[in-house]
């Protein structure tokens, strides 16, 4: 039966190329946009290189202090000392890394200027993340204890600084802001959309200008807490909060008297959404607009499709009339049309998949996002398939209802 329905749908498609074009254009366009969007969200939030352990990581990005009346607040990253005391000491976590957020700097080669992003990290950084080392190795506790002037650089920076050389640059000298560092490792770079791991040059935190000696609570450092397994996340979180609760209150920092301190350790998505803004009203507006745009994006082509399908009802009046005259119930007819519609949607989905691959390829190679690695993985594909089905149902039910409700006599008359 199913093959019959699909055969009929195929014939209907071939009958009027123009309408087929309208239908497939609408479907594949919508699905392409949705697929690229899911792929991008997956790129932003999924566990990808080098943060492959993101699903069992908690991110500590900000400390928020408030005065006793809770009128003003101040927030920002923390000091190395504070994180060592309150985060590094966690017992339930597998590992904890402390690093700076992205800083920027310049390097000069001949008459060339290279803009670069830098990051000061501890040795655990290389365990919590999974960078591909193309050359050499990461710095270890020994390098840090000795305050060695060593750096790990990305392949991109290597190309810019040393030119297009094939041989290894391990042991070579890099001069940044008048300090000479020895290259100890070369990694494949991380995309700029992952600020916790993105940089061009990674220094051990004991090198100059890292400000790890700062004694207050605030500074330039953030932390990633890695749990042993996903189900441990809550335990780690609770332990971290119990540490935070030990901070003596009230206190003074840089002349600011605070009575409340809040430091959150959150999974990546929550952390990201949290940074958008603390303001609840604005957040609702923001998500409201996104929801509205999505609704329009799926809604408009769906309405369009319903419109075209409903208008073309009469084309198939004789077929429906005959089937009804031979006793086909409304439900069977409805299912036939819905299945047909889903079939067409899936064809559109196939086209969309190809288009998405092209668009993703364009985005990855255009260099808008350095090291962009948008992909269609299983998750993205399943979400897209689900969207296809919903879209097919959405645009198929009303025409099917109209078609199956046609009067036999009227249908046969034409």
């Amino acid at each position: 039966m199913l093959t019959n329905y699909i055969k009929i749908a195929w014939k209907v498609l071939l009958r009027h190329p123009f309408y087929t074009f309208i239908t497939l254009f609408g479907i594949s366009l919508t699905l392409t946009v949705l697929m690229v969007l899911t792929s991008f969200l997956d790129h932003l939030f999924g566990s990808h290189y080098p943060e492959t352990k993101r699903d069992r990581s908690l991110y500590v990005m900000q400390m928020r202090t408030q005065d006793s009346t809770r009128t003003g607040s101040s927030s920002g990253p923390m000091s190395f000392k504070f994180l060592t005391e309150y985060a590094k000491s966690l017992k339930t976590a597998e590992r904890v890394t402390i690093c700076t957020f992205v800083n920027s700097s310049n390097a000069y080669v001949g008459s060339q200027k290279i803009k670069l992003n830098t990051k000061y990290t501890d040795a655990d950084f290389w365990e919590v993340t999974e960078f591909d080392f193309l050359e050499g190795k990461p710095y270890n506790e020994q390098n840090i204890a000795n305050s060695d002037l060593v750096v790990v650089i990305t392949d991109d920076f290597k190309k810019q600084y040393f030119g297009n050389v094939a041989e290894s640059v391990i042991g070579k000298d890099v001069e940044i802001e008048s300090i000479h560092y020895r290259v100890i490792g070369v990694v494949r770079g991380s995309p700029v959309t992952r600020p916790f791991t993105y940089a061009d040059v990674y220094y051990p935190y004991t090198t100059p200008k890292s400000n790890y000696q700062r004694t207050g609570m605030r500074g330039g450092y953030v932390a990633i807490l890695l749990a042993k397994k996903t189900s441990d996340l809550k335990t780690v979180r609770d332990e971290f909060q119990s540490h935070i609760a030990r901070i003596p209150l009230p206190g003074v920092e840089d002349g600011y008297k605070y009575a409340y301190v809040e430091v959150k350790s959150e999974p990546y998505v929550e952390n990201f959404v949290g940074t958008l803004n603390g303001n609840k009203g604005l957040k609702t507006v923001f998500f409201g607009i996104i929801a509205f745009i999505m609704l329009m994006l799926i809604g408009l082509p769906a309405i369009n499709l319903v419109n075209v399908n409903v208008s073309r009802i009469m084309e198939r009046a004789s077929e429906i009339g005959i089937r009804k005259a031979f006793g086909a119930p409304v439900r069977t007819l409805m299912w036939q049309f819905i299945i047909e519609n889903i079939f067409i949607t899936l064809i559109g989905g196939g086209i969309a998949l190809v288009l998405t691959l092209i668009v993703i390829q364009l985005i990855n190679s255009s260099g808008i996002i350095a090291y962009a690695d948008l992909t269609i993985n299983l998750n993205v594909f399943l979400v897209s398939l689900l969207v296809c089905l919903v879209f097919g149902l959405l645009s198929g039910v009303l025409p099917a209802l109209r078609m199956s409700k046609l009067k036999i006599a009227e249908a046969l008359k034409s």
Partner: protein
Amino acid sequence: MIRHLFKLIWNKKKAHSLLLVEIWASFLVLFGLTSLIVYNVRNYREPLGFEYQNAWAISLKSNEDTTELAQKIEMILQRVKAYPEVESASRMSNNFPFSQSSRNNGIDYNKKHVLADFYVTDENYAKTMVIPVVEGHWYRSADSVGKYSPVVINRKLKEELFGDEKPVGKIISERFKVTGVVNTFKSKGEFMVDKPALFELVDAKSPWDDLLMIRVKPGTDAVFEAKMVKAITTMVAGWSVEVDHLTDSRKTTHNLTLVPVIIFLIVSGFLLINVALGLFGVLNLSIAKRRGEIGLRRALGATGNGISQQFISEILVLATFALLIGLLFAMQFPLMNVFDIQAGIYLTAIAISVVVIYGIVTLCALFPSRLAARIQPAVALHEE
């Protein structure tokens, strides 16, 4: 005629309701898109207020060095000024043009309260950034006498605080004395809305405000930059020095505005093409269904033009209904002052959207209605 058209549409309201929804939704999408574009174009047309070419920002960070910061910054400034490649140099707070950081504060005058962007700069800033002063003069270090510190405001702040009054010499917020007025100052780039801004004289003894803005001679390259950075880092060991060319920073800030607009434009463009194709298909089918009616009208003497006019007016009336419903929604934006955007921007956007929708609808109806006009009465009636 119009009443007749209404009746025709009303009689087929069920079939038309979907078309109505479609046109309504397209209008809303278009309204969103045009609001965004009109808003940005309008901002773009206001002058920037300064010159970014050949201007460099040097960010200094003292790191763990805590002694005599103000003197050291002053020393670096003098050193940088001494280079023949540097035309002019000045010291300011870290919210330099096109940077990501910003700073604002409330300003009071005569019971009016305005939130303004604050820039702490020295006396050479106007010269370095080439900011024309339209009233009064840019402050000098010598102006800092008594308890009032000299400030320069932009035209927007002047309008909001003083209206038609002359601002020069007035005291605002009980601690600032206005010495001059500049035109516009859009520090976040051409697409930034012209906001109230205030420039305050930097305190030479403060350890903050450690950013140097310099204007170099055209053609100065990275070799000089490397030399300068090296000189600074040897003067103050342990400090971080970073140089930003404003032309580069400007590109980054522009992309932040333009990329979302372009994505939105492409997606909405495809949506509208999709809707137009669908509309065209539906009209084609509905006219094919009304061959009998057309044949009868032709037989009774209606001209081909008359027929095509009828179909076009029908769809225009339908579009008007949809637009009226759409306007109910769209008008809420200027009325409720959503996002604090001027009502004029929304109204322009509404006007453009209405025109574009009418245009699309007419275009879609044109071909099917010409087809209808060519129907021969004899053929059509014969089929009946």
